[in-house]
């Protein structure tokens, strides 16, 4: 958005995020939730909406929604219910969707925009880091079937029909496209932490509609809302918002009236196109679903609270406190739950949790990235990484030997670090041996030795290097340095 637009208009953005829940079965029947099967093989009278079929609630989906709500600080009303939302469309077998209208599973709450949950370039553009975007509600509904449009006909696959779908609705608290991007990233991270969904937008597990309105600086009342559809990636959300804010700004500048409408984002040309205006909006004629009884929630909420996972930012704080690592390192490690688990396993009981963090961030992540692996497929076990760091810390091997052991461990994951060190002959040199190397280095380099005696510290490094070479890396550089000083300045 150009500074001109930003200065003249206040921008309000709200997001509606649909998340497919990781459940074994569909929302109202026992058909499995699975992808990639032959079309229309995962169906039954219920998810096909056949005459006489009736829905039965999937408690697993309800529990996961309550769990998500608790992690996002929402409240669950003591009684919730389901409603029929009527509109005709071939991908909806009953021509009404079972959703929640006025008594959703979760109300209120918010998504905190923690830094480091999203890329640096986005962080730079966020006006208020640490801001929390308020949520209106989270409700649970059923997904529709998947339509495919061909030249002269359309086909429908009902395998997806009835998949549990959690809709998370934010207040229009978001003010920039980058904030919307950060919101999606932060939200996704929390949902993944909650274990309720993989929330991958590219796979359609997380889908998002946004609405955006502009109003002149100083005006209280929100401007007319424009809804954007067909946003298939987080970057599409950001780019469409940049485009749409600019478009609305220019329209307002030209004295045009923005009308409440829905526009479709075309990712290939980078523009939004009008789909429909408010006049053609549906009257959904919500009706409490007489096939489903209202649900009492207090026990479910109490149960969900028992094993609530810690939030990403809580983990960051705990890592800082428990392991004495920096906020930055803790954020990197906590950005992914599996990575955090790996680190925690390796760092717990390690001689230096900080060194473990360095090894993970500076060495391990790079190697995994190069080899196209992730932490769950990492050949180096957390135990072996801990042992490696312990060997170095105990000065059993040097840092550079440690790097060799690390590389060897990736090749032979079954071996232990000490076994590899032994194979390579990395054993700590004994002190008499080191003393002999120091003597040898001093007599071979009288010049630098003289400089050390006169107080030149740089020359210590040179002599240390010579000793390390003589010891073939076995000596501990710190010990060698101290030995040289003792000899020449003692």
């Amino acid at each position, binding site marked *: 958005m150009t500074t001109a637009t930003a200065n003249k208009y206040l921008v309000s953005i709200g997001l509606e995020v649909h998340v497919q829940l990781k459940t074994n079965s569909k929302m109202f029947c026992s058909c499995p939730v699975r992808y990639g099967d032959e079309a229309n093989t995962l169906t039954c009278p219920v998810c096909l909406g056949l005459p*006489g079929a*009736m829905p039965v609630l999937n408690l697993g989906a309800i529990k996961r929604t309550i769990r998500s709500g608790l992690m996002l600080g929402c409240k669950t009303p003591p009684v919730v219910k389901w409603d029929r939302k009527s509109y005709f469309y071939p991908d909806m077998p009953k*021509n009404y969707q079972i959703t929640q209208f006025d008594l959703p599973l979760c109300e209120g709450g918010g998504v905190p925009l923690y830094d480091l949950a999203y890329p640096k370039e986005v962080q730079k553009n966020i006006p208020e880091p640490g801001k929390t975007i308020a949520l209106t509600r989270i409700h649970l509904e059923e997904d529709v079937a998947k339509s495919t449009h061909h030249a002269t006909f359309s086909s429908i696959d009902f395998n997806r029909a009835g998949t549990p779908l959690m809709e998370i609705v934010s207040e229009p608290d978001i003010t920039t496209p980058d904030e919307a991007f950060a919101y999606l990233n932060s939200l996704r991270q929390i949902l993944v932490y909650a274990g309720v969904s993989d929330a991958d937008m590219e796979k359609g597990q997380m889908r998002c509609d946004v609405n955006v309105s502009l109003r002149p600086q100083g005006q209280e009342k929100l401007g007319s809302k424009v809804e954007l559809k067909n946003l298939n990636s987080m970057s599409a959300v950001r780019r469409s918002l940049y485009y749409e804010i600019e478009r609305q700004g220019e329209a307002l500048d030209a004295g045009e009236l923005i009308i409440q409408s829905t526009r479709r984002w075309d990712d290939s040309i980078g523009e939004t196109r009008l789909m429909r205006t408010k006049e053609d909006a549906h009257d959904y004629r919500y009706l409490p679903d007489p*096939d489903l009884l209202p649900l009492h929630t207090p026990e479910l909420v109490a149960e969900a609270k028992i094993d609530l996972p810690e939030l990403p930012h809580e983990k960051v704080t705990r890592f800082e406190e428990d392991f004495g690592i920096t906020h930055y390192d803790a954020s990197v490690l906590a950005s992914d739950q599996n990575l955090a688990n790996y680190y925690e396993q390796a760092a717990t009981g390690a001689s230096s949790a900080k060194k473990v963090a360095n090894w993970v961030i500076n060495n391990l992540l790079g190697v995994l990235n190069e080899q196209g692996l992730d932490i769950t497929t990492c050949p180096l076990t957390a135990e072996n990484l801990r042992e490696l760091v312990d060997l170095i810390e105990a000065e059993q091997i040097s840092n550079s030997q440690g790097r060799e052991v690390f590389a060897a461990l990736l090749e032979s994951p079954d071996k232990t670090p000490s076994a590899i060190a032994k194979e390579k002959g990395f054993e700590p040199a004994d002190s008499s041996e080191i003393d002999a190397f120091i003597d040898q280095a001093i007599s071979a380099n009288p010049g630098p030795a003289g400089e050390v005696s006169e107080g030149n510290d740089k020359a210590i490094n040179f002599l240390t290097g010579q000793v390390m070479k003589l010891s073939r890396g076995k000596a501990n550089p710190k010990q060698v340095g101290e030995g040289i000083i003792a000899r020449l300045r003692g």
Partner: protein
Amino acid sequence: MPTITELRASYQSGDLSPSDAIRTLADTIESTDREIQAYISYDTDAALAEAAKADLSLPLGGVPVAIKDVINVKGQPCTCGSKFLDGKYTAPYDAGVIKKLRAAGAIPYGRANMDEFAMGSSTENSAIQTTRNPWDTSRIPGGSSGGSAAVIAANEAIAALGSDTGGSIRQPAALCGCVGLKPTYGRVSRYGLVAFASSLDQIGPMTQTVEDAALLLQAISGHDAHDSTCVKEAVPDFNSFVGQDIKGIKIGLPKEYFAEGLDPEVKSTVEAAITQLESLGAEPVEISLPHTEYAIATYYIIATAEASTNLARFDAVRYGHRSENAANLIDQYRRSREEGFGEEVKRRIILGTYVLSSGYYDAYYLQAQKVRTLIRKDFTEAFEKVDLIASPVTPTPAFKIGEKSDDPMAMYLADIYTISANLAGICGISVPCGFTRTDDGKQLPVGLQLLGKPFAEGDLIKAGHAYEKSTDWQKTAS
């Protein structure tokens, strides 16, 4: 036809086999149904195949039961009395009650005619055929389960299943002179019953005797994991209520149900039945159900609102009547539904759509829900004073075919005594209690309605059976 009890006895004694029973029925249907037009379809070969392997040790082993054509039976058509589904839908699954019937050994045989999608009180709204009342074939059999009642009255069935949304079991049972029991909402699974109004619909038995109703109700009652409105409440042994004494039970007579609009002959017949109950030891008590006058309006708002969404699935996308003249998708929806649905169904869909529309919801649907609560409260309070409520089932005996076709309001008003039980969710039974005589000398059956507390079907069976045993109204039309 023999009753279920009699049929079971002849099976046990070896006098009859289930195949014999099916063949006898098939012959009667052949000779009778051309006139009565009560069956939409029947598959004798399939029934005979089931009869051949019937397990007579089961409670309903080898007993054929006619099924209202609104209940899914795997492999059979299920027309719901509609052109939309006639020849265009075969049920791929068994309804909950069908599974239970099969588990009890019964053989579903014959699909009974009905008002289209159970909307109506005369079966004239069937788009398939017009069913005639076996007592006077110029008259309607009642509805919407008119076919189920007529097949019993015409000796074309041993027993049948009907469904009751506002009286659709009790009213045709009364007009055809058989027993019809509407169970408490939640007693019987609705899974597989094509929904008209989900919060009111309930499947129930239609039989020749109260004892048979108890046997059939026993078989179909109880929890079904596929229907979350079907309760886990324990099912009592309904047969144990047969033959129980009714001395000292209090029977409420709602003054609103004996007021204006009630045919004098029907009134005197029902009053005689109440006197008979009194002579058996029951104690009549006058009561009031003050919100009765709002019941019909309330019912037509709630039932049509639910129906408008229930029937939205009939869109011709995957099954059902698809118009051949559609220009596009919306046009296909419009024309297919326009061509496939009858007038009454369209009237109710439009009414239901209207009452749920933005801006009208509070004034109609929400208000109706509030009144429904008051009606329910009327019954709760009444049942603090009495054990059962007795009343007529219908204000008049069966009327002539075509007589009320152009006057939907007159038709709706005829449901006045039965509708409230559905709104309140309580149980009710219609038991034959006499006849009125037409000008041309024909007998028309009259029904006595007994309403019971929630899940007290046992009380209906107890009083219904005591009454039935002490009278001689149980006969078929022939």
